[in-house]
């Protein structure tokens, strides 16, 4: 009798300990092997584009740039962030093409990216990663991922399976809608005369604690030239070479435009533009006057995590934000520990 009770308590102890271990594993998603996690997201990029040691899993091909942001003080009405006080803060940035292939041939129809890190004098930072599309084609992280997988080139034809893409678009009318808006804008000829859009809504908080929804973009001072007005070139790096030639000739500049949202404007769906006529505030000028290969640039080792924000800026409820932060971090962790292969744009390309 005493033995039975003893055994029962022993078994009880084991069950409780295993239960606690199980709860821990449950929290870690061990019992949900199909849920989209940061690791599975990064695996998706690797499956579609391959693994290139030391490179970002997306926006792999790029060059580093640096310069400064000259704030005109207008932004202080919207946000208490130090970066908007009249004055100058140093900036490190990176121009890139979307996709995980760091040796992809330059082409105007590839998505162009601009990552920026503004360093405030108080040590706080503002990091943002923008692209040259006016709206984002996907509403949710899952939609982005499903499109990525649907776009995987067939090993025989080296092209995406059109049936898979059609099926994806049939399920995602918001993507069809966003693509229409994107295609209604003509693409510029290069990195230097392209506008870049933050796309996702954030909250700006002013000194009195008032919050307003905003979106931001960088509008070039370099005059617009349509991509189809310029003949494409055979050189694999011709658009990066043009950027380098341009920046060496004269510093490149963009106006940082803040679009101020109104009550009712969507803050959780980057695939929908805000109505025309929203107030636009020019808060200062970005000047990029230095370019270098990733091999020497500090930009290579920066994670342009869109949730590195100074006080005065806060994330919105857009589901893309937390997901981007998580997946960028996963990509950063993977590449950090890898041997660094040479970038397509080498230090000698920048000097010539």
């Amino acid at each position, binding site marked *: 009798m005493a033995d039975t009770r003893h055994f029962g308590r022993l078994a009880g*102890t084991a069950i409780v300990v295993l239960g606690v271990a199980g709860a*821990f594993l449950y*929290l870690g998603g061990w019992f949900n092997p199909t849920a989209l996690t940061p690791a599975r997201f990064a695996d998706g990029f690797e499956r579609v584009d391959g693994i290139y040691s030391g490179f970002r899993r997306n926006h792999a091909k790029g060059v580093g740039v640096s310069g400064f942001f000259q704030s005109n003080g207008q932004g202080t009405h919207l946000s208490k962030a130090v970066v908007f006080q009249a004055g100058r803060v140093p900036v490190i940035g990176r121009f890139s093409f979307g996709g995980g292939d760091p040796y992809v041939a330059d082409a105007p129809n590839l998505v162009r990216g601009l990552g920026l890190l503004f360093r405030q004098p108080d040590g706080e930072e503002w990091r943002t990663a923008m692209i040259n599309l006016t709206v984002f084609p996907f509403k949710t992280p899952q939609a982005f991922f499903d499109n990525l997988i649907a776009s995987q080139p067939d090993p025989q034809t080296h092209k995406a399976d059109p049936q898979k893409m059609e099926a994806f678009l049939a399920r995602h009318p918001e993507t069809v809608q966003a693509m229409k808006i994107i295609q209604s804008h003509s693409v510029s000829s290069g990195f230097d005369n392209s506008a870049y859009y933050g796309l996702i809504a954030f909250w700006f908080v002013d000194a009195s604690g008032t919050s307003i929804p905003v979106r931001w973009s960088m509008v070039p001072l370099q005059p617009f030239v349509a991509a189809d007005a310029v003949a494409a070139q055979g050189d694999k790096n011709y658009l990066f070479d043009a950027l380098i030639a341009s920046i060496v000739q004269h510093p490149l500049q963009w106006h940082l435009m803040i679009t101020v949202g109104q009550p009712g404007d969507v803050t959780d769906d980057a695939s929908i533009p805000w109505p025309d006529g929203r107030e636009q505030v020019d808060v200062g000028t970005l000047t990029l006057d230095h370019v270098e290969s990733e091999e020497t640039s500090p930009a290579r*080792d920066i994670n342009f995590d869109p949730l590195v924000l100074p006080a005065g800026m806060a994330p919105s409820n857009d*589901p893309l934000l937390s997901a981007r932060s998580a997946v960028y971090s996963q990509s950063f962790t993977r590449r950090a520990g890898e041997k660094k292969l040479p970038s397509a744009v080498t230090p000698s390309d920048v000097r010539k």
Partner: protein
Amino acid sequence: MSMSVASEQRQFTTLMRFFHWLTAAMVLTMLGIGVAMVASLADYHRLVSIHRPLGILILIVVVIRFVNRHYSALPPFPTTMSPRERSVASASELFLYALLVVQPLVGWGMLSAARYPIVLYGSIHLFPILPQSVMLYAVLRRAHTVLAYLLFLTFLAHFGAVLFHTWVMRDGTFSRMAPWKVRAQ
């Protein structure tokens, strides 16, 4: 490590028990947040925003707790514990202390090596404690995971041992650290 042992003392001091349960609550929360956030897209940012300041808070509490332990009188081990069990218990206690100090430092160090701003709350952030190096970051990031699992396993062993003593051997081990006052029988 014990300073003096009062023969009539059955429980750890009130302050020691307070620190024990405070640490237990924080560390279990932290382990749950840690394992959940690395697997989450939707809650990643919210969880990481708690993870950073809570880690630093644990570091501070554990250091204060360790100093307090050094100056506190400890109750004797239960007579049911063999000398070998006693040395295992003492060693595992020291090991837990070491993990609880090293783990937040590794977290702080890896963010330093990656040059992430180490935001605690609002504009309050910590200074970097290591030079920038992505390779160093990669090593520390892996160490952070290994140490987290080690910490969880050590906690499970500690929890299981106390359950075993209290429930199976019925030697009143739990009452030594019970959050409430236990009178000597």
